[in-house]
């Protein structure tokens, strides 16, 4: 798989400790949920950020997606808590 840009917002960003990074997940990572699982194993800060996958929302290339959505062809994947704007 090629390089993927991951961006984080709000408390996901704070827990991971960075706003964005580039990763190269293994081929076994096919969906958003797979990616969350894989990121969660990258260290304590990631484990903390992704400890409750149900509280994590995701977007691929700036559109909301579901955990089961394929990440094939994605350039930028974002992870963030439920939105609280307005």
């Amino acid at each position, binding site marked *: 798989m090629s390089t993927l840009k991951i*961006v984080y*917002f*709000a*408390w996901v*960003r704070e827990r991971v400790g960075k706003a964005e990074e580039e990763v190269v997940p293994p081929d076994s990572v096919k969906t958003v949920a797979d990616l969350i699982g894989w990121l969660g194993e990258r260290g304590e800060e990631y484990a903390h950020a992704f400890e409750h996958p149900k509280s994590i929302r995701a*977007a691929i290339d*700036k*559109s*909301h*997606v*579901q955990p089961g959505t394929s990440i094939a062809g994605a350039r930028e994947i*974002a992870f*963030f*808590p*439920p*939105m*609280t*704007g*307005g």
Partner: protein
Amino acid sequence: MKTTVRLQREAFDPAAEAAALTQGRTDIGALVSFTGICRGAESGEPIAALTLEHYPGMAEAEISRHVEEATSRWPLMGVTVIHRHGRIEPGENIVLVITASSHREAAFAAAEFLMDFLKTRAPFWKQVEAPNGTTWIEAKGADDAAAARWQTPPGQKAAE
């Protein structure tokens, strides 16, 4: 159809925005304006400010998508949505939605629809700055329920 979508750090002027929407027109019979204001307390505790984080690019796209959906659902003559980001103190405005139509039903419905979606789908996050530190505001189930009122019309892709 005049639509304006803006994300900005700066304060906005609801009256000027309303005037811009209605200026020179005599087909608008109803103008609904919603202003969301930073309150001085959260959960009973005084706060110093809110800081609004957003996802640049996606926030604007998501709002524009919902403005388009509103204009396809209701006979609107104008829509303005302005959402601020950055640090906002109590009493300051956060968000503005203005809808114009010939009749009030469409203007009210579209304004509520847009606010429900801004609350639940637009990528903004509010952080509270309080005397004892900063915390993130939690999303409310009531907002999801409010957004769910607006059933997706037949033939359209269901909200994800």
